[in-house]
Structures are given as C-alpha cells and as structure tokens.
C-alpha cells in the first residue's frame, strides 16, 4: 500500500547569526520499507532519530531531499500541494499535542466541518448527521460539537484529533505520538479507541512512539530508527522475543517494567550524537558495546535475516 524507497531528508541550517555558511542536518538517510494493507507499522526511536520527520515527509508536509514515496502504486514524491489535496483525503495524520493542532477560536463542529467544506463533499443537510456519527465513533457526545477546544481535557482533545483524521474515511493514518501527552489511565482509553477505529475503518497505520510498550501493544511490524537510519525492521513478535541489532537490544532492555525488576540492563555509553555531524560508518558505533574498527569504515546495509526481518549491523556473529 505504501512503499518508501531510499528516502532521505536534509535540513539546511545557518551555522550562527554571523556566519552565513550552511550546515546540513541529516534527519533521514536512506530509509526504505513498505507497508501492506491493514498493517500497523510502529516507528520507534529516541529524540532526533527522525521518527516525526519520516511521518511528515510521507504526508508531504516536508519535501524529501531524495528518494520516492509510493502510495497505492502512485509515486507522490513530486506531487505539488494541489495534487496532494486529493491524496490527503486518503492519507491523514494524528498529532501528539491535540491542543496545538485545534483552532481555539473554532467550535469542534467548525473544525470538523472545514475539510468537508474545502473539498465540498457534503451538503448542509447531511453535514450535521455525519459529524454526529464521527463524534460518537470516537466516544464523545453530540453536545461536544458546539463546544470549543479549551473546554475539553487532554484525552478528549485527542479524541477530537482522531475524529478530524477520520472525516474523509481515510485508508491510511499516520499517528505521531498520539498518546504520549496523556496520563496512563487516559492513554489506555485512547489506545483502545485507536484499535476500535482501526478495525471499523479498515485502516493501515504508521504508529510513531518513543514508548516501546505502546509500540509492542499496537503494531504488527516495528522499525527501529537511530539518527535517521533504520537499524532493524522486524515483526513485532520476533523483535520483542529476540532483538538482533545492538541498539534494539539496549533500547528494549532500558525500559523499566512493572512486572519484574529489570536486572540485566544493557547500558549505552554517552549521548545521542548530533545529526549535523553523525558518526562515519555505522551511526550507532559511538555508543555500541560491540563496535570494532570496521564499524567506522563501513556503513552497514539492511541485511535480510530469516525472511521477515532486516538488520543493519556488520557484526552478525554477536546477534
């Protein structure tokens, strides 16, 4: 359904106020993967790993530097805004902070009705009925439509964010940290809602999160990103049973768990390097416990391992 081929995204930034020479932030480098219909792909990584950039680039909210985005067998990489308008009906996004993405001066009714008006898809008579159905689908009552964003709690606002993404009955939703800003008990409600609408609306999804347990709960395929590169792509089951890439291993072991005390944590050295000047060779080598000399020379390619997983690491003996 969606295919990403060698996608890279670079940002230009000025060195300093007084120095006009440019620096290049390599936010994404050579990312390739594909998603089948009805799959949920989890994107996981720490800050600066390029998760959100990837989501926004697929939506074409950002233009890719190189590479191709193929949606429903159509290459949309070069599409302009006018052409994207059609695609975006099928391709929607849910953001992390629903307050920042809702217009505070508009009632929920107006916010939800606006895209329908822009695309002149529905006549006034049916509009009300349609919005009531959508708002009930996300578990809010009819009166919510006449209220303003500030009258809702964080969880309810996220439900509105989801309702807005559903307006066009899309085929594909990119959810960028949809539950990160919510309290645990509310997070569970929203996760359940996302699961429900995934089934009801027959959705294919990209689910971006830094929270591994949420990813584990929600996705079928997991992509582990680090400094803009894919470290490992795997089915959820295999990844959580036995992560292969040293970064996946460390990331999974770093999560504090309620059910058992985590005794053999793999601690990583140091901090995440800056994407302005990523390490040569394997970007993870500066923090990797298994790094050898060759890791600084060879940029590891994604290698296929037993059919449904790929790992970018040259040291297969330690997997």
């Amino acid at each position, binding site marked *: 359904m969606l295919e990403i081929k060698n996608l890279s995204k670079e940002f230009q930034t000025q060195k300093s106020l007084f120095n006009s020479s440019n620096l290049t932030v390599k936010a994404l480098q050579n990312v390739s993967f594909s998603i089948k219909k009805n799959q949920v792909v989890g994107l996981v990584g720490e800050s600066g790993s390029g998760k959100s950039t990837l989501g926004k680039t697929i939506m074409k909210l950002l233009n890719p530097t190189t590479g191709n985005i193929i949606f429903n067998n159509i290459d949309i990489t070069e599409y302009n805004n006018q052409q994207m308008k059609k695609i975006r009906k099928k391709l929607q996004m849910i953001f992390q902070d629903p307050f920042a993405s809702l217009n505070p001066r508009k009632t929920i009714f107006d916010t939800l009705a606006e895209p329908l008006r822009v695309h002149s898809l529905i006549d006034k008579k049916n509009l009300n009925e349609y919005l009531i159905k959508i708002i009930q689908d996300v578990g809010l009552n009819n009166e919510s439509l006449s209220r303003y964003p500030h009258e809702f709690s964080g969880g309810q606002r996220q439900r509105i964010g989801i309702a807005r993404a559903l307006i066009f009955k899309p085929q594909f939703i990119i959810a960028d940290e949809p539950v990160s800003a919510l309290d*645990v008990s509310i*997070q*569970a409600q929203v996760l359940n809602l996302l699961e429900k609408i995934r089934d009801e609306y027959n959705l294919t999804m990209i689910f971006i999160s*830094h929270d591994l*347990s949420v990813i584990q709960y929600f996705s079928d395929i997991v992509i582990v990103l680090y400094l803009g590169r894919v470290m490992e792509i795997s089915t959820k089951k295999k990844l959580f049973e036995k992560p292969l890439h040293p970064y996946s291993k460390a990331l999974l072991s770093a999560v*504090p768990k309620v059910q058992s005390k985590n005794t053999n944590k793999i*601690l990583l050295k140091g*901090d995440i390097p800056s994407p302005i000047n990523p390490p040569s060779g394997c970007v993870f080598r500066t*923090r990797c416990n298994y790094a050898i000399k060759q890791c600084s020379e060879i940029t590891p390619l994604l290698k296929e391992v037993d059919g449904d997983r790929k790992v970018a690491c040259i040291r297969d003996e330690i997997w």
Partner: protein
Amino acid sequence: MQETLKIDGLFTSFESDYGSTKVLEDISFSIKESEVLALVGESGSGKTVTSLSIMGLLPTNGKINQGSITLLSKKNRELNILKLSDAQFNQMRGNDVAMIFQEPMTCLNPTMTIGSQITEVILNHKKISKHNAYESMLELLKLVEIPEPELRAKEYPHQLSGGMRQRIMISIALACKPKLIIADEPTTALDVTIQAQLLELLKKLKDSVVNKTSILFITHNLGIVREIADRIIVMYAGTIVEEGLVDEVFKNPLHPYTKGLIQSLPEFNIKNNKKIQPIPGNIPSMDNLPTGCYFHPRCTFATDACKIKKPKLEKISHNRKTRCFEFSRLM
C-alpha cells in the same frame, strides 16, 4: 529506624479571586532514613504540590491550611518546616533537603558556568575556602560520571545535553549530602537509554555516597517505581489512596485506582495477551470533586455507600494502607 520526614494531616489550597481550591487533603506519611519512597499519581493528583509544600516553594497563592511537616535536620534536630523563617528556610534548602526537578534547563542559570553554580551551593552552606570548594565541585562532577570534569566545569548549561544537565542537577543536590532528596520526575524529559543511565547512577550513588539519605521520588511511571523505590504512595485527586511496599502493592493492589492504573499499562496486557482495560471516565477537576469517595464515578467496585461517605485511609497491615470501603473484594 528514625524518620527523616513526617507529614501529618496536611491540607493545602490555592486561593484565587473566585475562591479557594483544595489541592491536598489530609496528606500524612513519613520517610525513614535511607528509604526511597515513590509518590505516584496522574496529572493534578497533587504529587508536585506535596513536594513544593515540603520545600516551602508553593506559589504565592498557595496556602497550607492545616497540618505539620517535620524534618530531621542533619544535626538531628526536629525542624517544624511550617514555622521556619525565610532565612531558616534558605539554610535548610540545599543543606538538609535538596530537590531535583524535571527540566534541568529551567533550573540551571544559563549565564553561569556549571562549575560556578555547583561551587556556589557549596560555599553557601559550608565554611570552606574557594579552592577547596572548587576541588569538591570537581569531585562531585566525577561522582555523577561527567567525563572531563575540568573542561565541563567551564561550560554553560546550553552546551550540555539533557542527560548531562540532569547529572549536574544531581551533583548540586548531592553537594551538601542532604538528609532528604526530592526528585520530581527527574527522568521524564529524557530518552529511555539516557533514563536508564541516570537510574543506574542514582542507584549507585544511593548505595555508596549518600546511603543515609532518603529519597522522595515523584513519578507517573510505574516501571521506574519498581526499579528504584522501596515503598509507594498512590495519590488521586489530592488524597493518598494507597500506601505500601512496592512489591506488595504491585502484586496485589488494594485500591481500585491502583489496580486500574496497573491494568491500563500496555505492558501488563501484552504479557497476559488481553485487551487493554482502561479506567473509564476522566480525572475530576479539583474545583468540582465528586461527593463521597473521589474515585467512585470511575470505580467498578463502587457501592451506594461510596457515593455518600468519604472513606478514610485505613491501616490494613503493618505497612499497608488503603482508602477504600471495598478493599476486601480486591484481596
């Protein structure tokens, strides 16, 4: 064992033009020497207000209406915190009690080097020469595992990463080896791998350098509680709903809210291969609390009595308390 901190019947409220809003109601607990106590709850439950009440850092409209907070100072004197003058408070803060905040960037002075910020604390509380203060500052930086401490000491906060800045905050908190450290969501703003490093560091320091110090660890992350704390207090809508040893509470929660929290975790449901079971409803607003038990509108165990009568925090066993009429149904 001695109690480092004892809070008894604390009521705190925020005053505004529209009247007064209760934010803490009848908070009582104590922390023993060298114990790590976790204070857990969702946003608005009163975790942070509790810590600010202890530190005397409530905003100007915050008011403590009732109760007492007693701290055992380093000289083993009992300090009644609510009766301290500003000068005495300044003596206490940093020396007897230190605090680590969530966002180190807003707590560090952006115009001072790391080194001078740490030395400032040392010079303030200890009568030592500048040179010795510099030496102990370097010692502290080594303790929190900052590489090249001499170089880092000359840097400004913005030159450091989030994890490094939090290490600096920890070193400032440790500077006077306080009796009590309050850590308010110290790892929430950090990435998991950096969080793991910091938790490991805190545990190490706890076992070696400050083994007599008690830690009040405020967090919403139950996984971290499991990893670092001895005892746990669960808060809901400004009250304590459950208290006990971490292992016991997680194994058999005796308040429906605690049980609900644990069952809302994706982790819990993956292992048991169940659909996530959220707590229904929303966290109530503090201006508009339900009658009876504050949790009853969201509670699956609620009876008619819960709608009218307010349950008390009752002692169930030696170190276990719960605020629920129906707790025996959870046993």
